[in-house]
């Protein structure tokens, strides 16, 4: 079996003698390799001879190692899965009761995955074989002078979330790393909490203080929320109201939610 693989691999090796380690993408992954072996040996996918397939699979990995090719972790995971299945099949079945074949078959899960994967390999080929716009079909590139349009307020904007993120990533790349502090260490950051509170307040007149802890009432969350509210007060973006001692605390936006409006200069703190 190794012959044609060896051929392919040695070809790759010949090309890239300079950098000894090459990436082997003959196979997309372990499932792809298994399908190749099944097809090559003309095996019945519903009844895979697990010891044959395991042997050939491991031979392939050994070969890759010998050639000093990088082996993706997934290939090794599959190797141990195969060995697991093989040993499961060798174990004598203690229960004598007749069981439905595939349910009890240690190979069932693997077979299901292979069949599923095969469908999507087909689908990928189908997509590639379609008449692609920009390759097989072309549209006109219109350069006709278009009438000048002044941008109206309710113009339709077309934006993709990914564009937004990509733009921000672009900014971050240009910038020295130390400008940003990662918030991963903190479970809850104050700035995140500020943003959250502002979101909740959007379009609302008030917010009960305890609503902020509906999801998690952790010490970190409490402290972060408290500091966030203080910060928001300092920024004059919210007002905090309490009708009496130990009564419910309400947080309200300092102004109504009208775009571009300025904040009132008054903020009250009764806590």
């Amino acid at each position, binding site marked *: 079996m190794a012959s044609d693989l060896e051929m392919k691999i040695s070809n790759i090796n010949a090309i890239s003698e300079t950098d000894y380690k090459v990436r082997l993408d003959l196979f997309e992954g372990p499932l792809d390799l298994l399908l190749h072996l099944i097809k090559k040996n003309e095996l019945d996918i519903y009844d895979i001879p697990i010891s044959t397939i395991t042997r050939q699979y491991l031979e392939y990995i050994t070969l890759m190692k010998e050639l000093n090719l990088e082996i993706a972790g997934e290939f090794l995971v599959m190797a141990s899965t195969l060995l697991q299945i093989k040993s499961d099949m060798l174990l004598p079945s203690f229960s004598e009761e007749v069981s439905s074949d595939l349910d009890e078959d240690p190979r069932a899960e693997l077979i299901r995955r292979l069949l599923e994967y095969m469908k999507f390999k087909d689908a990928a080929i189908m997509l590639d074989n379609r008449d*692609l716009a920009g390759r097989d079909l072309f549209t006109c590139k219109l350069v006709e002078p278009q009438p000048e349009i002044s941008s109206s307020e309710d113009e339709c904007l077309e934006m993709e979330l*990914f564009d937004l993120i990509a733009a921000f990533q672009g900014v971050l790349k240009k910038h020295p790393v130390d400008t940003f502090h990662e918030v991963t260490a903190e479970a809850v950051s104050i700035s995140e909490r500020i943003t959250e509170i502002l979101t909740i307040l959007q379009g609302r007149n008030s917010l009960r203080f305890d609503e902020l802890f509906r999801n998690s009432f952790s010490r970190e969350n409490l402290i972060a929320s408290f500091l966030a509210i203080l910060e928001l007060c300092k920024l004059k973006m919210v007002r905090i109201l309490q009708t009496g001692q130990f009564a419910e605390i309400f947080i309200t936006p300092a102004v109504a939610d009208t775009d571009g409006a300025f904040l009132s200069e008054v903020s009250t703190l009764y806590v």
Partner: protein
Amino acid sequence: MSNLKSIVECLIFVADSPLSFARICDILSEYDKEHLRSSLIELLRDYNSDERGIFLSEVAEGYQFRTCKANAEFIRRLVKTTTSKLSKPALESLAITAYRQPITRAEIEYLRGVDSGGVLRTLLDKKLIKILGKKNVPGKPLIYGTSRRFLEIFNLRDLESLPTLKEMRELEEAGIFEQQQELPLEDSIENRFPPDLPAVTGKD
């Protein structure tokens, strides 16, 4: 050519992406929908009946003029191919996303059996897939789906017109995998325009 038909023709010609029937109705709101529909049907017939270089394609939930495949070789002498070839992993992940959307990265990786982060990034960069939101399960993973551009590039009328996975197996086995069948025009067009429904409901 009737006046209305020529207006519809112009609109489709000028639009920079496939124009949906709903959008045409919006723009030409002073015209009767039925008239618009029949103009569009006539236009489809005009363009697609004889062997012309340009045909009116029903793609991405709309209508767009496109050149026929037979002349692709000559066109490529004039303009550069704008669609870059996708790698096998990219096509595989795209196919999985198309058929199983909305889908998370973990689900794609389970189906493919390999890490797919880099591939998803490529597909996002090429705007063939998009982030749909976050799944409401622990960890709130991002969920992905195919974009309108995917339909445009892969010449699909809508997601429903993707061949079912089972169909594909049969096609492949029958050896007619690469040929796309020509639909009988009369039938296909009229069936798609039930009298009381706008045929294509664009999401514009």
